[in-house]
């Protein structure tokens, strides 16, 4: 055991050394005479490699200690999670609703809240596709982009109001979901992942190059801001504006608060639809497909159409989020819809726990909020962040909330351990 552990840890350290020597160990710095020269920093490399060695040993020791009790721990953890879960969700919701009025909440906190909620919504939308239906979609950002551009173009070209454009953008994104889903959903697993990845890139490249429509890399600016059901937010407070109508001092923070509640409402809509659908035959069919597609087909479930509904619904919510993004930013360009966005959203879903609404909300908060928290760490931020993700996946391989709650029960609902729940093969 100890020999094996040492060997394993040494191997990890060796890999770390290979990675760290060029990345950290060799730096370029201006030499005394002018031209750049390479400065070795092998001290840091040694420290990092040592850390990896010790860390790996610690992980192995910890896992070995945990294994004998593996059978009971999840159940205990599950019980605690279930009990605390009952309070965590309402507490988070209350916090989200009250945030704009909490003392100490300023413009920065609100903006951060809006950002986190956008990712919560995207996570919940993608969760329908990946978490429930088990379809690995690496191009989710495509629908986010379609929604954003649909909103921008509809609002600018046709002068439609926000409340008309929002559902239209969702609809258009959903249509694209069907359009893209129809040919690719017969693929499974890795193949589906690659094709969706490709679609994500294709959409971005089309946006970059279709200059007549999208203005290419320069993006679309001056996107109309949302109004409070027809009352614009303006700093002047002239008649007909939000502040004038309610007889209050005009302030730029009013619009931010409005945007905050808008995205909160959109996210909660996504949540409500997902939770409701999960308890309906359609949602159960999604989960059945994730568990075993062949068995589902033998029971008369139309596999392609059922997958398509999941894909389209996920795309619709992505489109809503995109429309919101466009109206908040006032400016969009293909820059905002790169693959790394898809990866972040997928990471949120996986870290939160496939299929778990609460887990995804927490993980979006941790990932997006935490990333802001570590701002002071400068270039170490990514490293700390990556480490945190690895730690979560080691400690909870099925995500923060890996258990699945049954949708119906004759007696009491018992959480189902993540180990039994399928992750979908496509």
């Amino acid at each position, binding site marked *: 055991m100890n020999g094996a552990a040492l060997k394993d840890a040494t191997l990890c350290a060796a890999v770390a050394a290979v990675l760290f020597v060029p990345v950290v160990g060799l730096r370029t710095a201006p030499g005394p005479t002018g031209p750049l020269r390479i400065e070795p920093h092998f001290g840091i490399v040694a420290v990092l490699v040592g850390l990896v060695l010790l860390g790996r040993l610690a992980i192995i020791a910890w896992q070995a200690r945990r294994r004998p009790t593996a059978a009971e721990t999840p159940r205990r953890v599950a019980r605690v999670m279930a009990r605390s879960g009952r309070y965590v969700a309402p507490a988070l919701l209350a916090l989200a609703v009250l945030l704009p009025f909490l003392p100490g909440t300023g413009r920065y906190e609100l903006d951060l809240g809006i950002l986190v909620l956008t990712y919560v919504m995207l996570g919940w939308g993608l969760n329908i596709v990946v978490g429930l239906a088990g379809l690995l979609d690496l191009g989710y950002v495509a629908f986010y982009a379609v929604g954003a551009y649909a909103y921008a173009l509809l609002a600018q070209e046709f002068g439609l109001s926000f409340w008309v454009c929002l559902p239209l953008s969702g609809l258009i994104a959903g249509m694209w979901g069907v359009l893209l889903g129809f040919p690719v959903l017969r693929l499974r697993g890795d193949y589906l992942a690659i094709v969706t990845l490709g679609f994500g890139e294709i959409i971005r490249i089309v946006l970059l190059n279709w200059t007549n429509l999208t203005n290419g890399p320069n993006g679309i600016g001056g996107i109309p801001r949302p109004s409070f059901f027809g009352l614009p937010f303006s700093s002047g407070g002239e008649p007909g504006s939000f502040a004038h109508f309610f007889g209050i001092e005009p302030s730029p923070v009013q619009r931010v608060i409005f945007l905050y509640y808008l995205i909160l409402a959109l996210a909660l809509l996504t949540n409500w*639809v997902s939770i*409701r*659908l999960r308890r*309906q*035959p*359609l949602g*159960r*069919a999604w*989960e*059945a497909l994730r*568990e*075993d597609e*062949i*068995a*589902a*087909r*033998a*029971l*008369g*479930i*139309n*596999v392609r159409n059922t997958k398509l*509904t999941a894909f389209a619904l996920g795309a619709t919510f992505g489109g809503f989020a995109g429309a919101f993004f466009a109206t908040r930013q006032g400016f969009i360009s293909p820059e905002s819809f790169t693959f790394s966005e898809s990866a972040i959203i997928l990471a949120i879903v996986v870290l939160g726990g496939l299929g778990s609404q609460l887990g995804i909300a927490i993980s979006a908060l941790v990932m997006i909020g935490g990333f802001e928290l570590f701002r002071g760490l400068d270039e170490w931020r990514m490293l700390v962040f990556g480490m945190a993700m690895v730690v979560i996946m080691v400690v909870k391989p099925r995500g923060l909330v890996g258990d*699945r709650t*049954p*949708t*119906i*029960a*004759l*007696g*009491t*609902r*018992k959480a*189902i*351990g993540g180990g*039994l*729940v*399928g992750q979908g093969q496509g």
Partner: protein
Amino acid sequence: MTQGTRLVVDAVTMRFGGLTAVDGVSFTAEPGDITAVIGPNGAGKTTLFNCITGFYRASSGRIMLGETALHRLPGHRIALAGVARTFQNIRLFGGMTCLENLLVAQHRRLMAASWFGIGAVLGLSRYPAAEREAVERARAWLEATDLLDRADDAAGSLPYGAQRRLEIARAMCTGPRLLCLDEPAAGLNPRESAALSQLVRAIRDGTAAGADPCSVLLIEHDMGVVMGISDKIVVLDHGARIAMGTPAEIRADPNVIAAYLGEDEPA
């Protein structure tokens, strides 16, 4: 009606490249019968099942259930035509509870009642009643398969024998006219096998869980089960039908003894 749907398998051939896994097999499964398909390993039994249940498209031949041409239907339609099946290597929805497994089996009925999902989201009144009815049907089948106390446990956490029974219950929840069982007794102990025989008979006679009588097509290696409950036996070897008849006839058939029973069957 439930009675009177005969399964006719007519000269079905299934080729995989150069290999002919099923070679011109014909037989009929009469309504209200338990028809067993037996044969040595690799004889083509599962492949024949896959053709009947739409997982493979037969290279040639016809498969009729009553007036319905099963060989022309896409996979998911076969279940709607009234054919349900279980799998040789159990395929349950392991992360879902037993009850959920049985509700998924009633997907079609519930979908129609929920207006294909839209009505249910909006909370239309027809859906809750349909769901209650589905839960009652599931409860009846859980009781018939002796799984009622495990209803809220994950299917993947059940012991092996219980998983086999749950798979049968799930197939029956689709309301089939023909139930195809692929080695349901594999891995069961003698007591469980006896209970299984009882259950299959009850399914055929329509005395289980208040369901209508249902013809059964059965692949099985356990000769005790096959000889005990079958009304008719079809014997395959190397893809071809080598014998067909009642258990007594099959027991006495020299071809069968040579191909298969000789070494397995003591009596």
